[in-house]
């Protein structure tokens, strides 16, 4: 759906991005990660045709965005870093305007606007001026603006900025709804965001791609693949813990008060084995928390080790 080849953008003699190449298949949700200033926004601006690259090409559904910008752009919904809102317009008339600009046929505009308002819970503010809305609402109007034309491709630059936790959860639900039908690219530096909704990540640092892979493959590739399991238990029984040592996937185990920490490698089978032992051992299991190798760790490691001039 999106094919990027050898994309480079120079600002004077400073290269914002250098030789980016990647492909995104139809229906995928891809997280676009990178520290601040890595070139995420620049890349997104080029993908949407807002900016021209110094060299390289972008194909949107087989259409070159610089050869045939109007056709390519009709496939894209874009939420820029700062949502492009006219503060002196009402929410619904703004969305109608955007829908018209994005080729929604006149007869379907009202339905499209209603749908976008409903998916972002904006029905109550439809008649209010955008200028009078709070930041969270404005951000949601921005997202509504991107999805109102039901585009094949959604490009969202930091979509959850300014949303409260409940709204973030709603946004994730919305992404799940859109999954499959739309190809979605989300740029963010909020990692749980990516973990929650993306299937694949592209990590860039200093304008270069340092990793592109599925989340799972990324964590497996990183140094150990070890996971820490913490059981909160009613009773401390040292014997049960000692028995863990005989299991070859257990690297370490220790009690800390009523918390039993176990470091494991291997898949979900080892977790199942552990938890059944804890239960059958009569420890009185209260809760179990698996902190897998966090994306944070992967991210920090990758952006540190490769392509880093710092």
């Amino acid at each position, binding site marked *: 759906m999106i094919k990027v080849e050898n994309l480079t953008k120079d600002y004077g003699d400073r290269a914002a991005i250098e030789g980016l190449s990647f492909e995104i298949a139809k229906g995928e949700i891809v997280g676009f990660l990178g520290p601040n200033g890595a070139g995420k926004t620049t890349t997104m601006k080029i993908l*949407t*045709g*807002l*900016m*021209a690259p110094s060299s390289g090409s972008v194909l949107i559904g087989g259409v070159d965005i610089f050869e045939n*910008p*109007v*056709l390519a*752009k*009709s496939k*894209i919904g*874009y939420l*820029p870093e*700062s949502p*492009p*809102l*006219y*503060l*002196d*317009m009402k929410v619904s008339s703004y969305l109608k*305007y*955007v829908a*018209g*600009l*994005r*080729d929604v046929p006149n007869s379907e505009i009202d339905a499209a606007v209603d749908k976008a308002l409903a998916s972002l819970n904006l029905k109550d503010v439809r008649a209010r001026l955008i200028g009078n809305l709070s930041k969270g609402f404005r951000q949601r109007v921005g997202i509504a*603006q991107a999805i109102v034309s039901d585009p094949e491709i959604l490009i969202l630059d930091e979509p959850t900025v300014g949303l409260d936790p409940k709204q973030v959860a709603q946004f994730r639900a919305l992404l799940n709804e859109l999954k499959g039908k739309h190809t979605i690219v989300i740029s963010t530096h909020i990692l749980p965001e990516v973990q929650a909704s993306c299937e694949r990540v592209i990590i860039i640092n200093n304008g270069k791609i340092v990793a592109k892979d599925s989340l799972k493959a990324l964590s497996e590739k990183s140094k150990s693949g070890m996971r820490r399991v913490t059981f909160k238990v009613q009773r401390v029984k040292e014997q049960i813990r000692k028995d863990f040592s005989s299991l070859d996937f257990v690297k370490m185990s220790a009690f800390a008060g009523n918390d039993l920490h176990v470091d494991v490698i291997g898949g979900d089978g080892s977790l199942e084995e552990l938890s059944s032992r804890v239960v059958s051992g009569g420890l009185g299991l209260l809760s179990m928390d698996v902190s897998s190798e966090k994306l944070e760790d992967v991210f920090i490691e990758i952006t540190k080790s490769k392509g880093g001039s710092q």
Partner: protein
Amino acid sequence: MKAFLIFKKELRTYLTSPLFYFLAFVFTLFISARFLPSIYKFAETASVPESLGGSSNIHVSVFMVHLNLVYLLMLFLTPLLTMKLLSEEKKDKTIDLLLTAPVTSSSIVVGKFLAVWSVVTLLLVLALLYPLSVGLISTFDYAPLWSSYIGMFLMLGVNCAIGVFASSVTASSLIAAFLGVLMILAVMLVGSMSGTIVHPFWSALVEQLSMVLHIRDFFDGTLETSGFVFFISTLCLFCFLTQRVVESSRWR
């Protein structure tokens, strides 16, 4: 089609903004204050023979005075109306919406230009009501009146195109307005340089570039092809320049 959508949106923005009504108020206040005294004066002097300083030509002694004031006021009002069109979109980054939508930069410019030209024409129609109201109480020759207003309409089109261009080159409305006034003044006054140029070809060329020269023809009641060509081509030139500026934002 997209140009029409942008046109509608901009027109609505104008007609729901206090700025437009405020400017319309100031505009009518000024022209009203000037119109009535000149009517009285005309009534007093119309019966006096021309050799003694009287005038029986209402077009010259009332309508032209009125039009000259409209002309002067529009020099400032047009840039005030055009200033936000593109500069504010740049400042608020709403231009991103237009540039990432399947819309050509020509539609953006044409839509915005036509919107402001319509609004300015609305003001011109307000001004036209004054001479027309005189028609209720007396009779006169309407032909020079119509030709003057056709000329004004075209000239304001040029002013709008210049204003939109000024608005496209900066992200500050204030600078856009200031630049607009300067550029309109420059286009208006360039003709007066013709007297200082000795070479006959260049002198004639500069004279033909003068907005004042062409608008005079219209005011005098003559519709000349050269006037139409001058105004329409200047207007297109500035729209084209604006389109290039909008398009160029992609290449930075």
